[in-house]
């Protein structure tokens, strides 16, 4: 294997890629059922998973490419990449996936590819608004998404205090009663959500999300 002496050079990357897992990481969708500010909840969950030792790659449709790099790797932050490039035969994306324990897909109900994206998920977590006044709107969105996918493993998360906890309970009950689902409770803090995700020990999908060249 050819090696380059400079740190972070091609040789080092090749060595690193040699040890990358060939098993695709489980994929979890974080569906924002409310304002765009809910993406902060998604980021916080990803960060908590990272804090628990999981290598997370967060894919989002609004990801801004940073120069030549498709993957943003902020220091101490969560690696983030584009959601829309999933079909590109990109070596960097494929390598980033193989170097991850979990793929988180930050999703919006209006995403035109949502139906297709749902079909590649191991688990869907509904990110709920923490205000009771927004619950009906969130349920309306959730029903539209889930009405044809009752087979999908799903759970709910609402970040906040007592009002968020009340929203969560209401939603859990509503999904059970009206849609016949058995949603999981991912709690009201990113930390509890991350721990619940880890406890699930999700199985690896058969196919990778990105089909890299290497």
């Amino acid at each position, binding site marked *: 294997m050819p090696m380059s002496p400079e740190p972070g050079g091609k040789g080092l990357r090749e060595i690193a890629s040699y040890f990358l897992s060939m098993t695709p990481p489980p994929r979890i969708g974080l569906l924002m059922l409310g304002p765009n500010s809910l993406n902060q909840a998604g980021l916080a969950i990803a960060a908590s998973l990272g804090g628990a030792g999981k290598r997370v790659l967060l894919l989002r449709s609004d990801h801004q490419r940073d120069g030549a790099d498709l993957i943003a790797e902020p220091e101490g932050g969560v690696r983030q990449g584009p959601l*829309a490039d999933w*079909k590109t035969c990109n070596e960097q994306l494929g390598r980033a996936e193989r170097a991850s324990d979990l793929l988180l897909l930050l999703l919006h109900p209006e995403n*035109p*590819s949502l139906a297709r994206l749902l079909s590649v998920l191991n688990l869907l977590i509904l990110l709920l608004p923490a205000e009771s006044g927004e619950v*009906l709107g969130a349920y309306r969105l959730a029903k539209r998404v889930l009405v044809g996918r009752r087979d999908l493993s799903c759970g709910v998360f609402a970040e906040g205090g007592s009002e968020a906890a009340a929203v969560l309970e*209401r939603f859990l009950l509503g999904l059970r009663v009206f849609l016949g689902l058995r949603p999981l409770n991912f709690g009201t803090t990113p930390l509890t959500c991350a721990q619940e995700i880890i406890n699930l020990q999700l199985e690896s999908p058969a196919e990778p999300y990105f089909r890299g060249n290497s």
Partner: protein
Amino acid sequence: MIPEVEIIGKRLGSRGMVVGFDADTVYAVRVGTTPSEVLLAGLHDLAWLRKEGSLLQAIIPQAARPVSGVLIAADLFPPDFASLLPLFSFPCRLFRSIALAGQPFPWLLFEPYPPQVAEEKAVLAEITEAEERFFSSW
């Protein structure tokens, strides 16, 4: 593969390409255009297809009919792009290119854009009075 459209990709004269046809429409694009330019080309150059009527009939006699339209396949469309469709006086169909899991990469498929929502599914997704009461009065 584009649902309901038989792709033929035949060159039409020196200016255009008949992409394919479905039950009602012959779809064509001007040669040398990128997907994002196709719509504009269609707006300006639809006349060329009409002028080539006899040639079109020779190429695909089973599909030659007075209507013609534009077919656009692209990875991404600008926001609200689909809302322009009713403004055109000719049929225009949009497709997003996709690839399905388990298929080798170059085997591209297309899905209609904007996504078609089945009527039955839309009805199922409507909120009932009981649901509205449950989620709004507590």
